[in-house]
């Protein structure tokens, strides 16, 4: 569905872009995790400066691709650009500049009825590699674990792999795959023995976050750095931004920007 929306957005863009003129429009594309943040920034920015801002969410990988191909002005990424993407950008004569928007924790979530309260990083890694397949191996009830991950174009997925499992470990083939934060939340909320991971901003009462290495994910623990599974979220621009683009990229540093960041459950840098 996201892809269909993306296509539609691209179509509308193709139709609408000449009408607005390039200077008057800012186009953002990328991570579904950064999506809500980008949209709120966009609404605020349009209201304040009268500049049209369009936000698509097609995954961090697509965002980077868009920046390299010139189809968006700002790529929103929930991971740093990979060396391969940087070299691809360089080959096209673009030098991507990184701007940190906010910090985000990746919360490990389970069904609210699951008694497990705490997992260590090693236990989570063992669950995702398929070494642990039953909840009783981590102190829970006797039930098979339903492991849920994201698609390979997800920045959250890559950040999770890097932060929890290490670069070389591979997620078990038995793991189910869902296309978005929302889909994972939905599956975990409705499946008793499921485990999944979400951006901190997506956690609500329908799922239960578990503590990692004894630390519960929250704004405070992410900010202090004590929550082990956290990462920065990025805007990438092609070269140093100027004019309205610079104003937009600097939004997170303003008072209103900081308020938007914390209202959405992310953490101000």
């Amino acid at each position, binding site marked *: *569905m996201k*892809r*269909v929306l993306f296509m539609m957005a691209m179509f509308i863009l193709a139709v609408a872009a000449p009408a607005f003129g390039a200077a008057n429009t800012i186009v953002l594309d990328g991570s579904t995790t950064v999506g809500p943040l980008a949209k709120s920034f966009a609404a605020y920015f349009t209201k304040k400066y009268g500049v049209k801002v369009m936000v698509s969410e*097609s*995954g961090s*990988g*697509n965002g*980077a*691709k868009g920046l*390299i*191909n010139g189809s968006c002005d700002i790529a929103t990424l929930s991971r740093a650009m*990979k060396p*391969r*993407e940087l070299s*691809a950008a360089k080959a096209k004569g673009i030098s991507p500049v990184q701007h940190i928007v906010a910090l985000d924790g990746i919360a490990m979530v389970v069904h609210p009825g699951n008694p497990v309260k705490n997992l260590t990083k090693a236990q989570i890694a063992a669950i995702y590699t398929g070494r642990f397949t039953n909840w009783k191996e981590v102190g829970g009830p006797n*039930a*098979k674990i*339903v492991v849920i991950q994201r*698609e*390979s*174009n997800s920045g959250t997925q*890559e950040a999770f792999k890097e932060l929890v499992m290490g*670069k070389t470990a*591979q997620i078990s*083939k*038995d*793991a*189910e*795959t*869902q*296309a978005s934060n929302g*889909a994972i939340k*939905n*599956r975990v909320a*409705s*499946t*008793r*023995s*499921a485990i999944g991971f979400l951006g901190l901003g997506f956690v609500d009462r329908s799922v239960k976050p578990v503590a990692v290495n004894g630390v519960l994910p929250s704004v405070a623990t992410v900010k202090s750095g004590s929550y082990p599974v956290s990462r920065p979220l990025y805007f990438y621009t092609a070269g140093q931004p100027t004019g309205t683009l610079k104003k937009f990229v600097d939004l997170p540093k303003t008072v209103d920007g900081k308020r938007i960041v914390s209202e959405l459950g992310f953490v101000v840098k």
Partner: protein
Amino acid sequence: MNEEVRKESGRSGAFIISARKRKFQKIAKTAGESMLLLIASFVAIVVLFIFYFVAVDAIPYFQLRGFSEFFTSSNWYPAGEPGEFGALAIIYGSGMVTLGSTLLSVPMGIAAAICLSDILPFSVRQYAKPIIEMLAAIPSVAFGFFALVIFAPLLQTHGGPILMWVWWVLAAPFLLLAAIVIADLITAKIQDQNSRERMSKVLLAVFSVGALGFLYWVGSVLQGIEILTGTNALNVSIILSFMSLPTIVSVSEDALQAVGRDLREGSYALGATRAETIVKTILPAASSGIIAAVILGVMRALGETMVVWMASGNSSHIPDPWFNYLEAVRTLTATIAGDMGEADQVTGSARYHVLFAMGLLLLVISFFSNLVSERIVVRQRKILSGQ
């Protein structure tokens, strides 16, 4: 008279045509015809172009990685460094889901088509058929949403009882029919009519009790099953069978209607009952159309993307045991949809081309099944016309 002719020619210009006008007409005719030909061949050209462009992007994959990994390994780690592209489990998942939906939709679809064409009165059929066809108008994303948000949790909480009820509803009529037929067959040799009827009744009672016991036993086993994850092959098979039903019902009903009154009336005139007419006359006569309907339905299930992407769970493994429909699977279409975003030429070539290899595989499969169905239809037509 003369005046009449003049009038006629004045109206249509058919009688007196100058050489110039004729030439112009000829050119216009050629232009119009070639225009129509161009439009008609455009469809064929589009198909050829799709084949060409998919193949052009698929072949580099096989040049890079060879054939054996794609078809024999089930390690699907396209994002790994280096990536692994074993598609066996994904091909298996596609096959599993397609087979499951076919097993459900074909009996239901053909039964519904027979009911519509030969059993229901015309006034009911007028309303029933459009309603069934309306299923085809529901967007697949709506089916997917239903499968993910409503059906999957339902399977998890009430999976056992649902399976039991489905088993009862589907199996009970068949077993009852089987009991009647077997009892009739066994007693057919008894000469004396009275004792034959008595014997038949006794046997029928015995078989019915046996069938009921079997139904109950399997039902209670099914009721005990706990479904761990609702996004699994069964969920998708059921939803896909609903999606291919309108195609199967509509096309086979047309085929059954095409059989015509004369064959039906001929059969009745020979003393056949309605059941005999349907089974022995109408179904064989319409079989080519029904097979075409089935293949169209299968193609619909194989090519469907949105529902399987949302609700099949997308784990690229072969279920354990291999026929376990209660585990998540991943299909070719869902993989193409899910991995396309990341897999750009810019970031990784094998990873990009492997998706086209999958697309080519799907194209080839559907091409061959269309070919096969075409052959069957032609052969059937020949047999029926007595050549």
